[in-house]
């Protein structure tokens, strides 16, 4: 337990240092933050514009899609801010920085995730929260639904965290595959912004059993909206986000340990 506390404390110590460093240039910090909000906002405007021609997409209204968008984006952006730096593993290996990290008494994963912590990503989280807030009235809120929402958001952050780490770890084998990791992290979030009904059954199955991103927003949002899965998945899937997150944590731990053991460092 003390180990975990030290790891978390170290994470924030390193992150704080980068926040302080960024705050040394306040103008740059704020323009980057606002820029981040604008870019992600345009992202949603695209969906909104689409709805000026149609009333529903895949059987979902604009607000319902905004709900899916909000839940996946909040989870993804929080994970991105907290652990997104991990995708730079390949670069750290090449420059030898990973060796330096490995000779310090803090877990390497903690150091990788906290490295160059970017507080300005709060802007993107704010955009995701705003879209969610706009969508929220479409749900008839009950205590159970609120509980499922909280569960989904926490599990969602964990699921995206695992996706970031697992696909970045592949760089221990390939060194230069950060683009490959991006396809699953950023790409995954983009797919999850749409209702699954617009995709073929095989895609939805893969996103349930192989890379369980549907547990971030699709199944829990079905419950929030009082719907059953159009593909006929069991109803309890709508509460199963924590299970999916736990399973993914297990896989990620294995992959990470294996990657670190296989690490071969650079020459000299």
């Amino acid at each position: 337990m003390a180990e975990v506390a030290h790891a978390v404390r170290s994470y924030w110590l390193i992150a704080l240092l980068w926040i302080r460093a960024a705050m040394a240039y306040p103008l740059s910090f704020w323009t980057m933050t606002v820029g981040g909000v604008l870019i992600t906002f345009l992202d949603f405007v695209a969906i909104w514009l689409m709805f000026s021609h149609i009333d529903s997409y895949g059987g979902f209204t604009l607000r319902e899609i905004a709900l899916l968008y909000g839940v996946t984006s909040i989870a993804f952006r929080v994970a991105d801010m907290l652990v997104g730096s991990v995708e730079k593993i390949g670069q750290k290996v090449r420059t030898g920085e990973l060796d330096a990290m490995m000779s310090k008494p803090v877990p390497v994963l903690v150091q990788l995730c906290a490295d160059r912590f970017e507080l300005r990503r709060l802007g993107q989280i704010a955009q995701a929260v705003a879209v969610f807030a706009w969508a929220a009235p479409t749900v008839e809120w009950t205590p159970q639904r609120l509980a499922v929402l909280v569960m989904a958001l926490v599990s969602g952050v964990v699921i995206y965290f695992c996706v970031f780490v697992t696909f970045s770890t592949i760089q221990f084998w390939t060194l230069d595959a950060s683009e490959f990791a991006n396809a699953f992290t950023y790409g995954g979030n983009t797919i999850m912004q749409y209702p699954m009904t617009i995709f073929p059954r095989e895609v939805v199955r893969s996103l349930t059993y192989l890379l369980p991103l549907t547990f971030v927003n699709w199944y829990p949002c079905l419950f929030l909206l009082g719907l059953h899965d159009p593909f006929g998945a069991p109803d309890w899937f709508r509460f199963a986000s924590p299970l999916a997150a736990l399973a993914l944590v297990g896989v990620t731990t294995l992959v990470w340990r294996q990657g670190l053991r296989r690490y071969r460092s650079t020459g000299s």
Partner: protein
Amino acid sequence: MSLIEVRDLSREFTIRKRAGRLRRTSVVKQAVHDLSFEIDAGEMVGYIGPNGAGKSTTIKMLTGILVPSGGSARVAGLEPSRQRRELARRIGVVFGQRTSLWWDLPLRDSFELLRRIYRIGDRTYHRNLDDHVALLDLGDLMDTPVRQLSLGQRMRGDIAAALLHDPEILYLDEPTIGLDVISKGRLREFLRALNHERGTTLMLTTHDLQDIEALCDRVIVIDHGTAVFDGPLPSLRANGDASRTLVVDLVDEASPIAIEGARVLKVEGPRQWLSFPAGASAAPLVAQVAAAYDVADLSIHEPDIEDVIRQLYSR
């Protein structure tokens, strides 16, 4: 029990090579092979060898960065690859070719961060900071971002950082690479004082044999991943076919001196260079020369350590 114990340590790397359009063949390269040695607390050991001999690979296995493929290593009673983080609190590592400081942050911030992640007590931290910052002449550089430091300054910063938590062992991988003569001299002085006053065990890899001569009581020479010599510096000199040189200045020019046990290397006017085995005594030789010739001056040159090591490698 020794502080560092290495027994039959091996590490191999699989290198994949392209063979044809799609086929790949893999070659197994032995970077370190059945390496064994022990280092006691307080020793200063030079770890030398040609490029690719396995020096850095050894250091990385001793710090737990690389997992050995065979044999065992114990450092301060710990198994490096399994207890890497625990070991990290007890050792310091300085890689000469790169920094373990945070590139964009001032030294002061890096030191503060290390203080917290190593959980260094206030007294220890301030004592080390005061001592090392003064001795390494870092006082004026504390607020400069690491990326703006010169190589020598950065190296001093790295060494101060590696010593903040009072490590029992300090590994230095090429600590003087790229430094000018004055910086090298000061760094050596600092390291010697560290070893004498605090008893810190030093293990350094280097290409600069003057580092070894200035610092190390003991040398381990590694080639092709195996130790080819382990012992004190003087016996490294006596080892092998090393020879000493007697330089004789005669009063007048003469034909090459003919004396048993020595061989004339070169004649240049009245000066002649005679080679004789490093193990032999110079006294009888000098006596014979003085008896037969009018000698103006004499001097004896010790074998160049680089030559000795070159001979070791070429075996």
